[in-house]
């Protein structure tokens, strides 16, 4: 972990004090894990640190004076928050007690940008600002809402899973149990309509749907959710010209009509990745600075240009390993709340990663959202550090016995 950090950073001449601070903080984080959760999963923190270090190197390379140092500072704050979370949340089950408080905070944070202190940046109103300080409350809301969902679903799962009637051969739960799904759908639509933030809207709805499925094992919720999702997408497409643009650009990014305007950013992202090829141009040798927002949503394309497919594949493997470890924790957790919480956290992490990676590689229409641990942005970093702290906390209490070989081998490709 430290080697990766030092090596990547050296190449761009990361200021020595920052390396020292980061090293000290990560070592502190490591000892915090040893002290507060000695039985915890040993891979989560190093994987996050590697991703974070690569992201820092890329941001430093793009903006050594402004965003680089700021991101280091946010990382240090994030690690401090990570340690604090481990120290204060000694038993994750206590979180379930505050589920409604956290739920309200989550929804409140989510809707905060619609209030007068909200700020519109790059067309999306998902910021709140006080003076020059801007924050994306949606990132923190994500963690709060996952805790709420986990507690709520753990409590109600039997009830929600009861199939009281049969429709077209399916066991279908009572209609009133579709209520929560509809509420969540409305909330997602509200985010989409009022904050014009497709990425977050998609993310929240997907997390909830996946958790509902895990809790109840009812495919019918997934099916109904899928229908709701289609309706929501249709409404979005019909209502917002920028949604239509995104889809058109996705189909035809190199079309002369879009390439210099709406499609410019995505085209530049693809040019960056294509220019990188297998080995990349080498750190500092490419021109990722041409991509608008290279340091935030498009950090992955910037890495792809200078480190090539080897770099992007490496990053992808780290994300996959982290997700696999998270799922392993979720499966081994001994109580429903722990399972749902770990699953929700890691799914939110994974879905967010996939949404932006699929967007910048043109696998799916682009929806702006940050890449966890790598993109520039304080809110995103802090929430992800809290997220892995909670995962580590849950992993402390999983069944001590080694995992059955087949699952861990499949998911993590060997015992790490």
């Amino acid at each position, binding site marked *: 972990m430290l080697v990766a950090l030092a090596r990547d950073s050296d190449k761009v001449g990361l200021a020595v004090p920052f390396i020292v601070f980061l090293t000290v903080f990560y070592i502190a984080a490591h000892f915090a894990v040893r002290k507060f959760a000695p039985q915890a999963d040993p891979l989560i923190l190093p994987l996050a640190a590697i991703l974070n270090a690569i992201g820092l190197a890329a941001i430093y390379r793009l903006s050594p004076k402004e965003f680089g140092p700021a991101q280091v500072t946010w990382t240090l704050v994030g690690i401090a928050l990570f340690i604090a979370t481990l120290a204060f949340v000694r038993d994750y089950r206590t979180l379930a007690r505050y589920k409604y408080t956290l739920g309200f905070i989550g929804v409140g944070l989510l809707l905060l940008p619609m209030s007068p202190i909200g700020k519109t940046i790059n067309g999306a109103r998902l910021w709140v600002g006080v003076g020059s300080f801007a924050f994306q409350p949606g990132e923190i809301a994500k963690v709060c809402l996952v805790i709420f969902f986990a507690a709520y679903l753990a409590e109600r799962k039997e009830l929600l899973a009861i199939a009281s009637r049969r429709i077209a051969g399916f066991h279908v739960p009572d209609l009133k149990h579709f209520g929560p799904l509809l509420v969540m759908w409305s909330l997602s639509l509200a985010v989409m309509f009022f904050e014009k933030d497709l990425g977050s809207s998609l993310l929240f709805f997907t997390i909830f749907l*996946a958790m509902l*499925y*895990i*809790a109840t*094992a009812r495919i019918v919720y997934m099916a109904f959710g899928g229908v709701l999702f289609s309706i929501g997408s249709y409404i979005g497409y019909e209502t917002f010209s920028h949604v239509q643009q995104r889809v058109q650009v996705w189909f035809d990014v*190199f079309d002369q009509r879009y*390439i*210099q305007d709406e499609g410019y950013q995505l*085209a*530049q992202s*693809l*040019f960056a*990745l*294509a*220019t*990188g*090829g*297998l080995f990349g141009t080498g750190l500092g040798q*490419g*021109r990722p600075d*041409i991509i608008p927002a290279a340091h935030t949503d498009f950090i992955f394309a910037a890495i*792809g240009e200078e480190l*090539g*497919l080897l770099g*992007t*594949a490496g990053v*992808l493997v780290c*994300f*996959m390993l982290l*997700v*696999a470890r998270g*799922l392993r924790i*979720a*499966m081994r957790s001994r109580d*429903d709340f722990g*399972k*749902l919480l770990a*699953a929700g956290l890691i*799914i939110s992490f*994974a*879905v967010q990663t*996939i949404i932006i*990676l*699929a967007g910048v*590689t*043109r*696998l799916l229409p682009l929806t702006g959202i940050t890449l966890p641990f790598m993109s520039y942005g304080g809110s995103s970093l802090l929430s992800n550090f809290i997220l892995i702290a909670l995962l580590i906390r849950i992993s402390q209490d999983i069944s001590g016995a080694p995992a059955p070989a087949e*699952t861990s081998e499949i*998911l993590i490709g060997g015992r790490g």
Partner: protein
Amino acid sequence: MERQIRRVGIGLIVAFIAVFAQLNYIQIFAAERIAENPANSRALLREYSIKRGDILTLDGERVAESTATTGRYKYRRTYPLGELYGHITGFYSIVYGKTRIEASMDDELLGDSGVLSMQEIQDKFLGGGDQGDDVRLTIHSRLQEAAQRALGNNKGAVVAIDPQTGEVRALWDNPAFDPTPLASFDAKEAKVYWNSLDPQSPLSPLISKATSRAYPPGSTMKVLTAAAALESGQYTPKSTFPDPDAIEPCSKTNNEPPCMPLTNQSLTNFTHRACTGTGQIDLFTALRISCDTTFALIGLDIHDEIKKMAEAVGFNEPLQFDVGTEASTYPDVPDDNAPFRAYAAIGQGDAAATPLQMALLAATVANDGEVPRLRLVREVIDSGGGIVQRTDPETTGQAMSAQTAQEITDMMVAVVESGTGIAAQIPGVKVAGKTGTAQTVEGQNPHAWFIAFAPADDPQIAVAVIVENGGSFGSEATGGAVAAPIAKLIMEADRQIRGW
């Protein structure tokens, strides 16, 4: 719950694998195709981070240079002398690409020519900045200025060539354009200026008339016709021809030459009268006073020979040059269209020539019948001042014998001494020349031409001048009145500059 988590997990892993597959596609399989999209500015940015070499005149005047900027493109191209060299340097524009020397010498200017000089090897090891090589033209700045001055406000073109080396010493057309605004990084500024140049029109100032517009050459073509006649062995300067007012169409009552076959149109002399009034004219006199009927008859007689010589001088294919040229035309006229053979021989009908081609014709006569290879670039110089590349004079063949060339020279001297070209006389210098007054479309004034070289006995400079539609002389214009004085000014300027 484990089962559901595992299923969701498998879904997520599949999504990650899809991203990985897509990355392979973008970064490996389709990488080249994607990266080559013209909207990918990376290659351009790399190019603009190189200090592109300067373009210099023969005498060291800087006509294109790169200046450092603070923007995202490191160097900007400027052309300190504006439109004077626009048609020579061309432009180097982000929006409109590269033209002329900026295009043909692109590799050298970017330092990419494959020739590594000691200086460049040293730079590579010591990490010196990326710097291209300078290109030195064959153009002499003072002659170029003289050409611009001499043509004045007339629309037209001037080409001056050193006949012994083929080096082009002046190449000016009016109207011209200033390449600097086109090289602007402000796309809007470039676009506004570009549109003001009427880019779609064949008459746009963006097009160099001198190299790329073929005009009817009129009587200047008679130099070629006369040379082919002498070279054929059938004629000498003393050969005599009938001298009618016009060549009438052949008919039952008039079927003895001279008559025009297969037509009901007569070919009238420019003056609408017989050239000498004596009923006879010899070839020498016919060229001196530019007698149309004489050359029309030669055209009818030896069309194929004239065409062959025209091609030896460069007609019917774009001239090889350091910038793009348009082909001049000496038409291939079949037997059943014979009148057009007569017209081609006097530079009308389907005959068309660029000013560069006509200058090359004069230079060929001046160079004892050997066609010099035209050149616009003298040498390529690296940042340390070392010469990386130098082009030596070449010839592209012998178009006529030295004797023919000498006989034509004598005739052309007579043109200036006592014929249609007396306005080109320079005291103390024997000038050889030929006028041309080329009919264009009905209702438009004729183009005034003059081709010349001097001194006739030791040629230093060969010149072609065209003034479109007679310039200020309008319908009264002739090559002798309008174009000859301009050619004279240029030859005088060259004499002053080089001291011959």
